[in-house]
């Protein structure tokens, strides 16, 4: 399986190298690159052998850009597959630069999967932060631009915390190897916090539902897959069995449900349910047994498929109608049967219905909790499974495709979008029916059967009666045209108000000092000026240096620097 070729033709590099071609080529050539390169990358993922493939040195540290293992190939596989399906879904509707940015973002995710050391990991981590921001900006609206800036700020902050952790760990231990850690001292806590920012852990869970729904219908499909799941992957590598992750995961699970129940925007409902689902994985990593880690990894794999499917289904609705609010949608099943059926399959899979992928992976996590006699965790996860059906499983398809007749009669999905959805819908069912095909590739040997009569009946009861609760409580869940406050109020409102006050105070002080300075200078070389006349010196003194660098050009320069760094470092 091993081949020397892999050193130069890694799955990451092939995807990265293809992105300029997406911009340079036109027509069918561009389409061919978009559709074929992810498949080559997928094939290359499977050529990466176990262990470190190549080693470089960076100062006194040993850098291992490519390292293989079952877990790494599992995540690499789903990221490459996701890139292909995302490309298929987008290639006829998206602008080329959105797809190119999405592919660099995906390459970053695959790069993290095969990173053998913390420096490589960090570089790909930041590559993802940058290009996911570009994907959000491709939403093209003022709201997308602002959400992108908030998103970038959050991730650059998280990245800085991670970098501080990595540097201090490297100084302490003299090594940048990726090894399992416990959050015990400054450096390990910093690393853990940096990783937790990217899984949308409390208190910063809000960034996810703030940014993802502002991207374009095609962009949010890419966004749904990579950032949080790369962080889940890294947590599995670095913090398996870290006890703090259990309460963090449980908080995320409940947060996702409650906020999704309050939400009116269909894509934002799905974004909250990412936090919910990733909460299951984070909790499983906290449990940390072999079964739990298998559960986290397989759930991430299944989750990427059904979550992208749900975002694709919602994306078609937005693409065809321009509407994503539940209050304005409804009754679309008449004219969008393919989109509806695929959306329903995704909704059943996220709820963990027997015969769908979610059932075969989520039950693993519950079993792991039961095996460790974590009574509260077990029952909270069961309650959350019911809640998932409530907020995503029924609420999403019900309000979008059924509910009432909104009078909208949009066309069904274009062929490429349909093909992408049907492929992932089929995979949801395929993994649900033949789970051993997924189990075979998990990091630990699997001795688990999801389809015992007890489990199947238990979950059917749980889900069907949640469905009953939904329809009986429907009057309580009438959609309102509202948004819900979150912790991000602190920086979107409180911090802005504070900085405005501070800056007006600073401006007043500067103006006062300027005036005194100019008056003092004026007695030497200038006649006293009439009111309103601004002298040259005043002009010079009023230049605000920090204002002359726009965020756009800063981001561009960072991107150029980083890209050249990656290029130099990779060769």
């Amino acid at each position: 399986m091993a081949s020397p070729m892999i050193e130069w033709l890694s799955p990451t590099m092939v995807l990265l190298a293809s992105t300029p071609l997406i911009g340079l080529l036109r027509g069918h050539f561009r389409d061919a690159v978009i559709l074929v390169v992810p498949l080559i990358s997928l094939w290359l993922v499977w050529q990466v052998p176990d262990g470190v493939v190549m080693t470089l040195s960076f100062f006194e540290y040993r850098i291992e850009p490519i390292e293989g293992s079952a877990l790494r190939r599992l995540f690499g596989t789903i990221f490459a597959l996701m890139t292909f399906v995302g490309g298929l879904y987008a290639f006829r509707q998206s602008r080329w630069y959105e797809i190119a940015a999405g592919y660099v973002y995906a390459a970053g995710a695959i790069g993290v999967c095969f990173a053998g050391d913390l420096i490589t990991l960090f570089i790909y981590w930041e590559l993802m932060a940058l290009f996911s921001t570009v994907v959000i900006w491709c939403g093209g609206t003022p709201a997308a631009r602002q959400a992108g800036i908030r998103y970038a700020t959050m991730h650059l902050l998280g990245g800085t915390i991670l970098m501080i952790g990595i540097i201090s760990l490297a100084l302490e231990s003299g090594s940048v190897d990726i090894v399992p850690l416990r959050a015990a001292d400054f450096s390990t806590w910093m690393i853990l916090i940096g990783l937790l920012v990217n899984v949308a852990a409390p208190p910063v869970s809000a960034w996810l539902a703030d940014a993802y729904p502002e991207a374009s219908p095609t962009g949010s499909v890419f966004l749904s897959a990579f950032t949080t799941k790369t962080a889940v992957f890294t947590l599995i590598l670095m913090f398996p069995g870290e006890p703090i992750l259990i309460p963090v995961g449980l908080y995320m699970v409940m947060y996702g449900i409650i906020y999704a129940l309050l939400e009116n925007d269909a894509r934002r409902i799905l974004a909250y349910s990412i936090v919910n689902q990733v909460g299951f994985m984070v909790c499983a990593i906290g449990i940390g047994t072999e079964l739990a880690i298998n559960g986290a990894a397989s759930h991430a794999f299944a989750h990427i498929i059904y979550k992208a499917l749900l975002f694709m289904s919602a994306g078609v609705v937005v693409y065809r109608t321009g509407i994503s609010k539940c209050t304005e949608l409804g009754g679309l099943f008449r004219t969008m049967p393919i989109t509806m059926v695929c959306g329903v399959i995704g909704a059943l899979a996220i709820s963990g219905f027997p015969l769908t992928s979610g059932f075969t992976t989520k039950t693993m996590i519950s079993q792991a909790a039961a095996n460790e006699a974590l009574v509260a965790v077990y029952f909270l996860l069961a309650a959350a499974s019911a809640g998932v059906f409530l907020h995503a499983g029924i609420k999403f398809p019900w309000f979008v495709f059924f509910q009432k007749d909104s009078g909208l009669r949009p066309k069904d999905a274009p062929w490429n979008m349909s093909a992408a959805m049907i492929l992932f819908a089929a995979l949801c069912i395929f993994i649900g029916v033949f789970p051993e095909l997924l189990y075979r590739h998990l990091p630990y040997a699997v001795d688990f059967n999801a389809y015992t009569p007890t489990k199947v009946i238990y979950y059917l009861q749980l889900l069907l009666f949640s469905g009953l609760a939904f329809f009986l409580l429907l009057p309580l869940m009438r959609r309102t045209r509202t948004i819900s406050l979150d912790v991000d109020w602190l920086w979107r409102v409180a911090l802005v108000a504070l900085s405005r006050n501070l800056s007006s105070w600073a401006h007043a002080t500067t103006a006062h000092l300027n005036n005194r300075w100019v008056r003092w200078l004026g007695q030497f070389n200038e006649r006293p000026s009439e009111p309103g006349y601004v002298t040259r010196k005043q002009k010079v003194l009023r230049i605000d240096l920090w204002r002359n660098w726009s965020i756009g050009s800063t981001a561009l320069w960072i991107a150029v620097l980083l890209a050249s760094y990656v290029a130099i470092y990779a060769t």
Partner: protein
Amino acid sequence: MVNSIKDDHWLERPKTVKRLWYGFIILLVLSVVAQLYTGGKGYFGIDGWVGFGAWFGFLACVVLVIIAKILGKVLKREESFYGESDD
């Protein structure tokens, strides 16, 4: 592309809705009755009771919806709260 024609789709007729409800109730009953035959014993005693999944799932949803309803009173704001209505 988008027309505003109200129609009488068979899936939305009161008769169909009623039938769907009957079908759903039969499924609910079956899921509980089936447990008598599988005889699940559960991990912690209580979850082995007949119909545990049913009432636990139902109650969990009721509690979650009520919590959301109460939190909604505190957290819900107009769409233009942050000054960027995306309509």
